[in-house]
């Protein structure tokens, strides 16, 4: 058993209201998700001594903890973009294992869709002038995130012959899963032709290769192994974790076809003592179709360059041999800006057998992989039930 294997378990998960919530602030959404996750676990806010938060506002973790009325003895605000919450799981399991806290809350929400409609959206392209990306990339018209991922997709197509049809397979599979999820945003049928006919955003990525923009958030409660056994729900064990980042600006990515999931995944598998063939279910960050394809390769579910052929024939869809993003993913279920929290929520629910019409049968292990910040960071979490 690895250093953190079965030292801690996810014991509560919840989403806030999702989709379009113009009458709620992100703090209200975080509180809502936290209350629901505590209820799911059968715990109260007074049980929380470890606090994990990531977001875009100044000193957000303190603001959120203040709002919720938490004075943590252990606080972690690691912010590697959308992968933040997979990083947090590893950090929480380590802190619990070291006895620095007993029960951790990981929480997050954003209101990107309402902010956009209200004209108060954050400008994610304009960073501090001192950022190298501002000086050397932005003057050429780079903006985030779509062109960044398009640069990777274009290179993957060049090196490996990957096609737009193959990328569309990923969006179509996500939509099929979403059609089975009552809270998913986009549930109407989608075909490969529909994806290819959707507006070109940044070559080679079409609109339907890109994730949604939504309001919402989520919360995850993690506690020590001994405590987890006595709570309301079946413990979802943390079996292995890994994290890495390789760059920040896309021009500095060592290889546009290789994400740091290669390194975080390797570490997580080693810690869990498992390999790709032991995994029943995948929850992969799908900011874009290409993001999923790269992770399948980098995590070892197919060789590098084979991702396009691997996803053909709706292998990732319901009834496919490799179920991926069983809630519909960022492409069709929800994407609030940092999708990583929803990967953990869906995996925990699948492992507990709570997913009704979209439940994958016999799930004992699940792998969640978050990707953040220009394909720059990756956090892998392998979960399992007894």
């Amino acid at each position: 058993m690895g250093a953190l294997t079965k030292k801690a378990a996810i014991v509560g998960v919840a989403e806030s209201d999702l989709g379009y919530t113009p009458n709620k602030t992100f703090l209200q959404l975080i509180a809502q998700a936290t209350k629901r996750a505590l209820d799911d676990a059968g715990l109260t806010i007074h049980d929380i001594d470890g606090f994990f938060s990531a977001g875009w506002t100044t000193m957000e973790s303190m603001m959120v903890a203040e709002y919720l009325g938490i004075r943590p003895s252990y606080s972690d605000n690691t912010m590697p973009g959308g992968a933040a919450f997979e990083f947090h799981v590893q950090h929480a399991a380590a802190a619990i294992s070291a006895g620095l806290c007993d029960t951790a809350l990981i929480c997050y929400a954003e209101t990107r869709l309402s902010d956009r409609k209200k004209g108060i959206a954050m400008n994610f392209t304009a960073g501090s002038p001192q950022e190298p990306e501002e000086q050397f990339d932005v003057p050429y018209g780079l903006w985030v995130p779509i062109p960044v991922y398009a640069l990777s997709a274009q290179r993957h197509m060049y090196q490996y012959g990957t096609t737009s049809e193959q990328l569309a397979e990923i969006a179509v599979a996500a939509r099929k899963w979403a059609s089975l999820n009552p809270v998913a945003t986009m549930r109407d049928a989608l075909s490969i032709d529909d994806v290819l006919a959707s507006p070109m955003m940044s070559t080679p990525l079409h609109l339907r290769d890109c994730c949604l923009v939504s309001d919402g958030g989520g919360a995850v409660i993690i506690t020590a192994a001994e405590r987890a056994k006595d709570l309301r729900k079946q413990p979802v064990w943390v079996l292995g974790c890994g994290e890495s980042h390789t760059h920040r600006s896309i021009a500095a990515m060592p290889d546009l076809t290789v994400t740091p999931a290669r390194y975080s995944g390797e570490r997580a598998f080693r810690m869990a003592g498992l390999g790709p063939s032991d995994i029943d279910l995948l929850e992969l960050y799908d900011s874009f179709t290409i993001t999923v394809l790269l992770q399948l390769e980098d995590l070892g579910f197919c060789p590098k360059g084979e991702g396009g052929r691997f996803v053909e024939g709706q292998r990732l869809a319901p009834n496919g041999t490799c179920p991926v993003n069983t809630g519909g993913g960022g492409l069709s279920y929800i994407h609030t800006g940092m999708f990583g929290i929803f990967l953990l929520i869906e995996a925990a629910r699948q492992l507990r057998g709570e997913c009704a019409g979209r439940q994958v049968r016999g799930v004992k292990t699940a792998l969640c992989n978050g990707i953040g910040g220009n394909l720059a960071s990756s956090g892998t979490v392998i979960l399992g039930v007894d």
Partner: protein
Amino acid sequence: MTTDYKKPLPYIHDETRTYWEGAKNHELLIRKCRACGAYHYYPRDLCPSCFSFDVDWVRASGRGIVYSFTVCHRPARGFEEDVPYNIAIIELEEGIRMMSTVVGCPNADIRIGMPVEVVFDDLTVDVTLPKFRPVDS
């Protein structure tokens, strides 16, 4: 050269001033480590390969290839009138990569692996941006 340039301009500071002064003189200056010999981009006062602070400025050949590119159909702020426009990651002969854009050929003709050479676009009195145009291979 215009004085009412509306697009984002770089914030130039001491660490990078030589690079931008070079561009104004139509030279592409890059940094090379005196300790390990590695080139790097963007220019830093240290070598990210070996963490030596003994780094030189050298003139790049200005030749390279398109490593990847995308044609943006939605604009960055300030680029609204340019849509569709391309951005490209150029791999220089020296083995390092930089963000840029391909000029002098239609977007539809840009290919990964295409040989290119640097050209200089004088945006304002203070800022010249290195861009790349196709060359015969």
